[in-house]
């Protein structure tokens, strides 16, 4: 599904290189965890894959469903099934969550040549998914993420994912700021979406999240490269030993 080859990325406005020769292959149905210390390039990877401005790819390629992902706009990537659950979901005053979800879903359907969903069908479709994430009608009426608690924001991200049904889900530090109960709700939401034709990249600093979302592969990112890959036992090893061993790996 996704093939990242020798990816090099720097900030557009600075010379600093953040991703420095990254290779990663993700197949449909797989869950990959990417772990690493702060500043290793985890969030940058999520932004580069989802098409945020401000980054320059200086070398390498990203192929997604046999197409050049990097050539596409953020909008087109989303319509093709790429979804980023933000570490810090953005608050947008004045745009109601329900309206936003409807515009987003129907934009994607239109881009894929599918029929737009009618308002009554859409309401039913969202309410079903929202209920599973303990999201009531009140939250859906409010402006996107405005006045939401940390846990509500993360649940709202997962709701968007459940509504948009992407093929490639990138979860950026979804566990940050969550207490154990909220983490369980979010993880259940994510696990419900696991399927043979959907892949996930779970970016996290701590092993804790991986108790709930069990990965098929774990990769250690350091200084913009994947320096070690393994199965879920690698996550436990990291939790026990810390990242010190990898701090100088890419130097």
């Amino acid at each position, binding site marked *: 599904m996704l093939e990242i080859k020798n990816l090099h990325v720097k900030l557009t406005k600075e010379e600093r290189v953040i991703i420095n020769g990254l290779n990663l292959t993700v197949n449909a149905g797989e869950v990959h965890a990417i772990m690493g210390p702060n500043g290793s390039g985890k969030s940058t990877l999520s932004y580069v894959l*989802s*098409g*945020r*401005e401000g980054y320059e790819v200086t070398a390498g390629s990203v192929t997604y469903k046999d197409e050049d992902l990097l050539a596409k*706009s*953020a*909008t087109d*990537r*989303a*319509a093709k099934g790429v*979804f*980023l659950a*933000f570490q810090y*979901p*953005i608050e*947008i*005053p*004045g*745009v109601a969550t329900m309206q*936003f979800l409807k*515009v*987003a*879903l129907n*934009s*994607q359907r239109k*881009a894929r040549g599918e029929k737009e969903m009618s308002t009554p069908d859409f309401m039913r479709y969202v309410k079903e998914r929202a209920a599973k994430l303990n999201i009531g009608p009140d939250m859906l009426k409010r*402006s*996107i993420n405005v006045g939401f608690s940390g846990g509500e924001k993360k649940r709202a991200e997962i709701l*968007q994912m459940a509504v*948009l049904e992407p093929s490639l889900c990138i979860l950026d530090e979804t566990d940050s700021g969550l207490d154990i109960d909220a983490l369980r709700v979010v993880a259940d939401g994510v696990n419900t979406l696991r399927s043979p034709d959907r892949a996930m990249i779970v970016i996290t600093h701590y092993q804790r999240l991986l108790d709930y979302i069990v990965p098929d592969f774990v990769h250690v990112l350091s200084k913009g490269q994947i320096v070690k890959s393994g199965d879920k036992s690698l996550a436990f090893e990291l939790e026990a030993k810390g990242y010190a061993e990898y701090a100088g790996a890419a130097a």
Partner: protein
Amino acid sequence: MNVLVPKTLAETVFGLALPHRKMEDWRWTDLRQLIDKPYPPHQKVTASAQDIDRLVKSSPFAKMAGARMVFVNGHLSPRHSQLARENVATRLGSDEPVLQMNRAFATDGAHLKISGTTDMPIELLFLATRAEARTVATHNVIEVEQGASATIIETHIGEGSYLANSVTEIRLGEAARLDRVKVELEDEDAFHLAHANVTLGSSSALNDFTLTSGAGVNRQNSTVEFHGQNIDAKVSGAFMLGGKQHADTRLVIDHQQPHCSSRELFKCVMDNHARGIFQGKVMVRKHAQKTDGKQSSHALLLSETAEFDAKPELEIFADDVVCGHGATSGDLNHDHLFYLMSRGIPEADAKSLLIAAFVGEAFDVVVNENIREALAAFSNAWLTRRRRAR
């Protein structure tokens, strides 16, 4: 007006001195420069029924239930109106230039006395039909009596090149309440020069909203005077400007009595070469203790060549008050834009959503839901036109 500047042709014709840039309140809107030809007043214009009907229908509130007074080229059209002129006298005396011009040229206007409570909005619709360039001046006097309440919409629509001069004088009695909405949609070849004076009695409430989206040159001067205690006044506005439009709003909130509160929120969207100006002054007189006053203006610039100037002023003579002001100006938030696009919303749609959300915040002051919906529909139509022009 004691600055010696040679008279322009327009002034010779008007027989009045026009405000110019050396006057502090008019520094951004030099009418001596901008009024490039005489706009003779008191011109008799014949308008066709089709033109009038088309303009009546183009009001954003055309489909809304309510009573109407329609003024065509400065004169009440009884055929289109359900309300008649009442006997309320003007009390305005001021040397404000637009008011002076109005005193000399006004031909008609809505004179209304509101007693009791009317749920139905009253729309005052001012139309200018296509004709020779001229001045069309109207003067409204609206009195909301003690304990009475009303919703009044003032809509200005026109075609062609003309100068609209509009004065609205409003008096709220004790515990009276007025929801006022003004929508300015004049032709882009037209001038809209307005002056509003609102006096508020004890325990009265004012919700005032102005949408400015028409005219090549718009200048609106408003003064809200607090004549009693425990008054709550909210004054909001929105600019939706494009092309080479110029809009200059000057608002003076004059707290003369204690225990009153005022809130002002202006959301200004400027595209292309448009220029918006907000001069907001909050005055708290010595006697007006415990005043709670807040003013803010926010501008969204959609092009490199659009411009916004803000001149917030606080003049406080009382020592026990809470007052503040803030002004911001910028382009669309890139994080917001990326967030919407990352969910599959095309860039142009995402921008329209964000612009509508930005400007829509100012609509919140409008209590009547149907009016708010009509404003939202206007804003969406404006955004669609903007996209088609690209």
